[in-house]
């Protein structure tokens, strides 16, 4: 009984935040925004898949031969080719793919039939696994990597940016600039490897990273991912630091900052509150992009640290021209890019109410 009251209060507050806060301030209408975004995402994914099909149509690499193995005889290659329906014209294969996505598909396992439910992205040429399943297994890995790295690079980058805007022209700023830039100037595989050798090999502070699912053991999860996060964050931080700083200096030149100076507000809070708020828009936009693209782009990190994520799978799939897997992976990336950008737009409109969601 006693617990119901706070819950009710909370939910009402939430309700207000959502209807009054979000719905009200977004002007254009939140549901409309969501609908448009969903539609946009569908179109984006559609285009993406078509592009990949087109690319693989022109790209080198004899799929049947690669799948069958180098020593396969022409007759066998032909069999594999039929098995994978590689002889159909590319548009027929694409339509087949779309059908799979919409209504599902049946595949023969040799001894039986494997039903692949919609949305079915097909089976991997290489491992015969369902691509949807494969991807669902990998998303948590890459997701963990991306989220952690983003949190870290935002803290590191924005923190550094704020500090260097506040202490602009001073020694603190120079040192910070040099340090963050050193991170940028070193490719991730170098930073990652060196960190791993130092921290895991020499000092033995951390284990050599091995993916542990969050649901198994959150502490081990974080512990193992710490190094990949740090490596990625070190690379990205400078970008955010510099961007934050330069946007903040812009804001500092504006009139309203003078108001707060004239009221004796500390420079620290002028910079860290008022200037920062104005500078966040590009930072949020960029992190959305980077976060989304990390789903396809963290391959170097994943490869280096042996994390079984999407990026690594993608590299392998591209190498063996495993088209269904490649398409699936790219669609996931696309999905996250669109999603992250949508979230960024909402955040952005909440932060700056002059902006109406488009």
């Amino acid at each position, binding site marked *: 009984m006693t617990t119901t009251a706070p819950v009710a209060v909370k939910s009402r507050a939430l309700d207000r935040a959502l209807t009054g806060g979000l719905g009200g301030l977004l002007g254009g209408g939140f549901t409309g925004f969501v609908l448009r975004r969903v539609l946009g*995402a569908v179109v984006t994914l559609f285009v993406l898949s078509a592009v990949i099909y087109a690319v693989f149509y022109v790209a080198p690499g004899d799929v049947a031969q690669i799948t069958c193995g180098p020593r396969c005889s022409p007759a066998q290659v032909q069999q594999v080719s039929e098995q994978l329906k590689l002889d159909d014209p590319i548009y027929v294969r694409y339509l087949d793919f779309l059908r799979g996505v919409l209504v599902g598909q049946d595949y023969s396992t040799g001894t039986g039939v494997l039903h692949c439910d919609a949305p079915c992205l097909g089976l991997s040429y290489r491992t015969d696994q369902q691509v949807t399943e494969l991807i669902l297994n990998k998303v948590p890995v890459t997701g963990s990597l991306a989220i952690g790295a983003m949190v870290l690079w935002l803290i590191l980058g924005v923190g550094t940016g704020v500090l260097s805007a506040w202490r602009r022209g001073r020694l603190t700023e120079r040192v910070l600039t040099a340090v963050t830039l050193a991170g940028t100037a070193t*490719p991730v595989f170098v930073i990652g490897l060196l960190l791993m050798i130092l921290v895991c090999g020499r000092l033995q502070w951390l284990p050599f990273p091995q993916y542990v699912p969050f649901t198994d053991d959150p502490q081990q999860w974080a512990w193992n991912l710490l190094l990949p996060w740090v490596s990625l964050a070190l690379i990205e931080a400078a*970008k955010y630091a510099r961007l934050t700083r330069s946007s903040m200096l812009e804001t500092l*030149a504006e009139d309203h900052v003078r108001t707060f100076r004239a009221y004796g507000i500390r420079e620290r809070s002028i910079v860290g509150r008022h200037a920062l708020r104005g500078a966040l*828009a590009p930072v949020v936009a960029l992190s959305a992009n980077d976060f989304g*693209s990390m789903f396809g782009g963290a391959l170097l990190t994943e490869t280096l640290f042996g994390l079984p994520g999407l990026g690594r799978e993608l590299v392998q799939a591209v190498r063996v021209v495993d088209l269904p897997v490649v398409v699936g992976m*790219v669609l996931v990336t*696309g999905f996250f890019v669109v999603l992250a*950008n949508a979230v960024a737009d909402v955040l952005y409109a909440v932060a700056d109410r002059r902006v109406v969601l488009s």
Partner: protein
Amino acid sequence: MSEALLASEIPGAGATAAPAPASGARQFWRRLHTQRAALVAAAVVALLVLVALAAPLFTALEGQDPTSYHPGLVDSARGGVPVGPLGGISSEHWLGVEPQTGRDLFARLVYGARVSLGVALAATLLQIAIGVTVGLACGLGGRRLDQSLSRATDVMVALPLMVLALALLAVVPGGFPRPVLVALVIGFVGWGGVAKVVRARAISLKSLDHVAAARLSGWGGVRIARRELLPALAAPVITYAALLVPGNITVEAALSFLGVGVKPPTASWGQMLTSADVWYQAAPQYLLLPAAALFVTVLALTVLGDGVRTALDPRAASRLRIGTGRKREDGA
């Protein structure tokens, strides 16, 4: 009385002897000149470009070339580490030699500057050009244009470089100059971030009255973008551009491994870095040299970019209004 006022107020209106106002560009240069760090950075960038352009001259001075093997200078039994102290530094090989091959590192570094700087700078310019255009179009255009361009950006961001490289391999004729191809590929792939940053800024800038005023003046979107928004966008864009360069240098190396990049034995910093990572212990200078070169480049570009950014802002340059409100010890 108003007529009288007019006359009395502004003696010789329009024909004053006041000094002609300096043009925007001139003021910009004047403001840039006051920043020592930016000038030093500009000198460093110029030096780097010079090194890249005059690479043959520098290597001739040393008497080496970037492709000759010196099997005698590496210890074959130990995996090919350079013999001699500090990675084989000698009067012939100023910076030592490359492990395994014994190629001269100074020559490779100097020649590598050509590829890396050329490709990375060209690609960055392209990324900025496309990104800014798309971002501005998103920010200023209607909802529909914004939607379609934003989704197109998403497609570009989501397409893995590797997949695109594959397509290009297939469609670009073998004779196409590789560095140009690399710059084009990187340029056309990596503009998503710029576009997003520009769009975000443009959206909040366009709510300002001076943009409304420009619209009332009758300007179209392009002109508004160029005159009202672009100058304000210069800060984040320039900042971002300086940081795109190191990324592009690394991407060049990645593309080279996919076969779209520059052909061996041509050296590039990115490729040196990628093959040097494992040598961090056995031949540290092999890793440190390209890393240091890259660092100096980024640092110089960043400092220069910051200088340009500051000089572009008439408010910040004179420190009027942007002042810290803090007491300055130096009494400046």
